[in-house]
């Protein structure tokens, strides 16, 4: 039996595969590179990704204003779930490398969030190039800045985690011209909405005389009516992303904003937390009580397999009863006293036979 169990355990151990990656991903988050997607494996156990990584900037990037960058991944050999983790960084040191450390703000990541690490499922392969767009707010101080794109993914045979990082991509952030028509510095786009809900957006602009809003839905671009800097994006019927941008006219050169992405999502799951916690405590006390009220099974038949105390006790009782009966029926001694050679104890037990023989 033990041998069979050992064989089964050995087969189970041998059937496992060694993997240092998180095949299901770890979720989008703000992450440094040293922990971007393969936290359960030492960096020394990672393989080197063969993917080519690139970042493209807009021609003009102004300090403190919104800008769009496009990241692309080519020649990535990934695992069967086609998932890749992409991280936008400011250095390749693995420390103090978040874009926020240089003053960048991620307004919209490719998944509609505001994270520097995103997990993308797409048709990554050795023959394809997959591009993603990020909307950033540039640092408020003009100057030269660097950005890197790091990648984490599995390998086709599911063996080890692969990591890689792009070469340094430099961008010059210029000072904002005085009369540049633009969106206000503190204005933020809406990134997500619920299905079936119209979205009214209010623009806040500077140095702007007129605005045109373009909505891209599918392959088509339509102009939306803007009244007092407000416009409405029609409700979405299905989950998905629509893109829109604004063209601002004023005294300065005409400006076109980045494409803003608006994700339509199904309503999230909601629960009455008070009811949930109450039910949790109710179950705790109920099951504790139910365990406490149960009685021990009848002396555990298995444990008492060799326990003969019941038989011994019953036999002992029978002997005691017999002894008491005999004591009560001790015959009186003969006139001449005990027969010759008898003891009193013998008389108590066999006296009746002696008398019977005489009779």
């Amino acid at each position: 039996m033990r041998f069979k169990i050992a064989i089964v355990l050995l087969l189970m151990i041998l059937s496992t595969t060694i993997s240092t990656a998180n095949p299901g991903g770890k979720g989008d988050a703000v992450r440094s590179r040293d922990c971007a997607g393969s936290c359960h494996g030492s960096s020394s156990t990672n393989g080197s990704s063969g993917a080519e990584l690139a970042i493209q900037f807009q021609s003009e990037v102004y300090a403190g204003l919104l800008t769009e960058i496009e990241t692309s991944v080519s020649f990535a050999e990934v695992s069967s779930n086609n998932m890749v983790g992409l991280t936008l960084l400011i250095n390749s040191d693995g420390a103090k490398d978040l874009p926020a450390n240089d003053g960048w703000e991620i307004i919209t990541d490719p998944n509609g969030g505001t994270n520097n690490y995103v997990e993308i499922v797409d048709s990554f392969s050795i023959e394809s190039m997959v591009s993603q767009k990020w909307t950033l707010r540039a640092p408020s101080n003009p100057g030269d800045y660097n950005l890197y794109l790091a990648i984490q993914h599995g390998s086709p045979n599911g063996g080890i985690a692969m990591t890689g990082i792009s070469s340094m991509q430099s961008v010059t952030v210029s000072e904002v011209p005085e009369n540049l028509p633009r969106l206000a510095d503190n204005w933020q786009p809406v990134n997500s909405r619920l299905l079936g809900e119209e979205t009214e957006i209010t623009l806040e602009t500077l140095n702007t005389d007129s605005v045109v809003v373009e909505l891209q839905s599918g392959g088509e671009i339509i102009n939306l009516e803007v009244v007092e800097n407000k416009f409405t994006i029609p409700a979405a019927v299905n989950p998905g992303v629509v893109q829109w941008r604004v063209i601002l006219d004023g005294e300065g050169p005409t400006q076109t904003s980045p494409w803003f992405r608006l994700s339509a999502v199904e309503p999230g799951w909601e629960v009455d937390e008070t009811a949930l916690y109450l039910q949790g405590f109710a179950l705790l006390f109920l099951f504790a009580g139910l365990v406490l009220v149960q009685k021990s099974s009848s002396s555990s038949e298995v444990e008492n397999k060799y326990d003969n105390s019941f038989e011994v006790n019953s036999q002992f009782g029978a002997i005691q009863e017999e002894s008491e009966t005999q004591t009560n029926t001790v015959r009186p001694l003969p006139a001449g006293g005990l027969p010759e050679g008898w003891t009193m104890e013998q008389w108590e037990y066999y006296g009746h036979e002696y008398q019977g023989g005489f009779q």
Partner: protein
Amino acid sequence: MISAGTFHVIATELTVGTFALSGVAFLLCALNKGPSSREAVAHWALLGGLIATPFAIISGVNAISGEGIDNPMLANKLLLSMTSAGLAIGLLLRKMWGSTVDLRHASVGMISVALMLTTAGIGGEYSRGETLLLFIPKDTVMLFPMWASITILALGLAIFAKSAVQHRS
């Protein structure tokens, strides 16, 4: 300082480890095999897991990235861990009050351990999208109406109190 997520991993591994040890010891108790210390190991490990459980629950709630419990898996984790903790508390009190470790007692111990390990399995699916518990309906939450929860809570407290009084007498 460490983040709630890291602390949750520490508390969870303590909980799961001690509960798993307890489960093996309860299995030996049920089979009536193994070292004579199996009963002590089962109950002391269960106590260790029980002590670590509140830390795992609280740190887990704090580590959630969204606002509150916004996923059915989280709700199921809470209900399963509370049920498991209830069974474990009952077993420990029962043992403390002198009951014998029979087959039923050991079986309840294994059920408690199984529920806690299921909770951990659901946590794995929630955070990493992977689990071995493929056939368990983790997205379905059996949530009672408030009145039913209050009734069950009152019933549970009554049974609990009655057992305590019976033990004292």
